[in-house]
């Protein structure tokens, strides 16, 4: 007989499992919106965004040049199917609120209700050093712990950073991901809006995470946030981002650019819990450099979206730099998670690891796409790549595209890959211990992703497990 705790847990799960539409997929009326650009992309739209934000001339020039790159590049024909994206059927800039507030009470009522439902202010009180909340194209709320501010930590939205810390922004802007890096980075560079700017001075350790939450509300919306994190020598910071959107029958586009500079002996961890609704194309470029003895870690969890193409990268540019990528992807019906990671060893005695876990069910498709490169001169470097895929039924699909280039004879590189199905024997064994088939499968899946969830702060690990249980619901029998 089930214990009262188990019954409560099951009830709670049933509540969460009511479905995505109820918990995250709702949308607010657009009354009171300050500005909504007409659909489509043009020089006029790009100029109007820049003008609306009252940007310096160099940024306007940067945007217009990026637009030319975007227009001149073909849409990628590898990875997922991008042919269905209609770039003319997207709103590229939507301003929901006239101002970015530091006082929760000043945030417009509808938006406040949304973030209340998503638990953002509660999370800030409990376990975060700072919070940013982006709604449509711009950040509507930002707050950072006063003690950190006194230590010189900057955590603000990118638009404000450009106004208040222009020199610092300009010094690092697009040095990690230039606008011509790829078509989607060019698009972001042309129409970027919002995102986070984080600056951690030398030696400062930010003990609790900084979090940004991204929310799309409008139909046919494009969200193009731009994030830049600069960790000075010997500093330490953990940044977390989460994202959701309403369920619509038409598609939206999320195309972010994230640049990170981890200076000597610093440590940066960047955690993503991506849970976009299944009408969102999620096409993101994320790249970091780790200088001498720095550590850079990407923890990348992809649960939502129609198609995700995202391969966080780390360039180990200084001796003894270290990089880690932990990637988890869950592809259900109608989803394609094309994820992975890239690590480039460009200096001696650098080390890295990539651990990728993917789960496919109900005809979903997971792809691991990765690059490990040990460049000439990166002597005594070590790396380990592990890709595990779990298929829950016959209709689902898993692909692995690993690329490994080794330029030094003394590199120590390992690659392991497994593809498995939930075994009848495993399920039978757990059923013999009193679990039903669904509980047994959930337990096996949770065990499969445990190497990733144990790296998350507890609150996020619990949430991730629950989201996966939600996705698992109804997958048995």
């Amino acid at each position, binding site marked *: 007989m089930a214990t009262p705790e188990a019954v409560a847990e099951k009830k709670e799960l049933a509540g969460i499992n009511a479905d995505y539409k109820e918990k995250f997929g709702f949308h607010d009326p657009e009354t009171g919106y300050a500005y909504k650009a007409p659909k489509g992309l043009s020089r006029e739209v790009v100029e109007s965004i820049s003008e609306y934000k009252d940007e310096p001339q160099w940024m306007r020039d940067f945007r217009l040049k990026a637009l030319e*790159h975007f227009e001149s590049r073909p849409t990628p024909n590898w990875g997922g199917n991008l042919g269905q994206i209609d770039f003319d059927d997207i709103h590229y800039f939507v301003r929901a609120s006239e101002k970015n507030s530091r006082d929760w009470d000043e945030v417009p009522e509808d938006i406040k209700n949304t973030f209340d439902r998503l638990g953002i202010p509660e999370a800030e009180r409990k376990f975060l050093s700072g919070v940013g909340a982006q709604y449509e194209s711009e950040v509507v709320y930002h707050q950072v712990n006063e003690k950190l501010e006194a230590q010189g930590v900057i955590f603000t939205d990118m638009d404000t950073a450009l106004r208040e810390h222009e020199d610092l922004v300009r010094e690092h802007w697009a040095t*990690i991901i*230039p606008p*011509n890096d*790829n078509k989607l980075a060019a698009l972001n560079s042309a129409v970027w809006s919002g995102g986070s700017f984080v600056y951690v001075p030398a030696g400062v350790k930010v003990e609790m995470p900084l979090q940004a939450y991204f929310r799309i509300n409008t139909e046919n919306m494009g969200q193009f946030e731009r994030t830049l994190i600069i960790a000075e020598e010997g500093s330490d910071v953990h940044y977390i981002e989460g994202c959701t959107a309403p369920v619509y029958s038409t598609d939206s586009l999320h195309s972010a650019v994230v640049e990170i500079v981890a200076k000597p002996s610093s440590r940066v961890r960047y955690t993503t819990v991506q849970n976009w609704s299944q009408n969102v194309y999620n096409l993101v470029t994320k*790249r970091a450099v780790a200088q001498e003895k720095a550590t850079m870690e990407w923890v990348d969890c992809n649960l939502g979206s129609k198609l995700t193409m995202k391969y966080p990268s780390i360039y180990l*540019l200084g001796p003894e730099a270290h990089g880690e990528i932990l990637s988890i992807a869950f592809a259900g019906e109608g989803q394609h998670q094309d994820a992975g990671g890239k690590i480039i060893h460009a200096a001696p005695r650098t080390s890295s690891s990539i651990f990728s876990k993917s789960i496919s069910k109900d005809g979903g498709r997971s792809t691991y796409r990765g690059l490990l490169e040990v*460049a*000439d001169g990166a002597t005594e470097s070590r790396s380990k790549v592990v890709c595990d895929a779990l298929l829950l039924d016959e209709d689902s699909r898993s692909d692995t595209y690993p690329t490994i280039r080794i330029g030094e004879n003394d590199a120590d590189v390992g690659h392991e890959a497994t593809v498995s199905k939930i075994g009848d024997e495993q399920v039978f064994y757990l059923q013999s211990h009193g679990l039903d088939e669904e509980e047994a499968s959930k337990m096996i899946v949770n065990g499969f992703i445990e190497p990733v969830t144990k790296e998350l702060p507890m609150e996020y690990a619990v949430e991730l497990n629950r989201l996966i249980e939600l996705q698992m619901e109804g997958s048995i029998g």
Partner: protein
Amino acid sequence: MRLVEHDGEKIGVFNCDGRLYAIEDRCSHDDGPLAEGEFDAATCTVECPRHGSLFDLTSGRPKTLPAYAPVRTFATAVVDDTITLEVD
């Protein structure tokens, strides 16, 4: 900018406000033709047309990713109105 060839190797020669610099015409990231990229004489840089890495013409070093390795540079001299390059 002038593109010259020596022994099968293409070299771009750039005039940065009177100072001459020569680099190999091949991006260290993806072999892009650097000499076809946007040249900025004021900052003495050229941008790879393929993925946008910006190269410092005075040193051959990339100032932005995705390239991280320098490209070869060649010493220049002007003798009797003729530009000469010192090639290995």
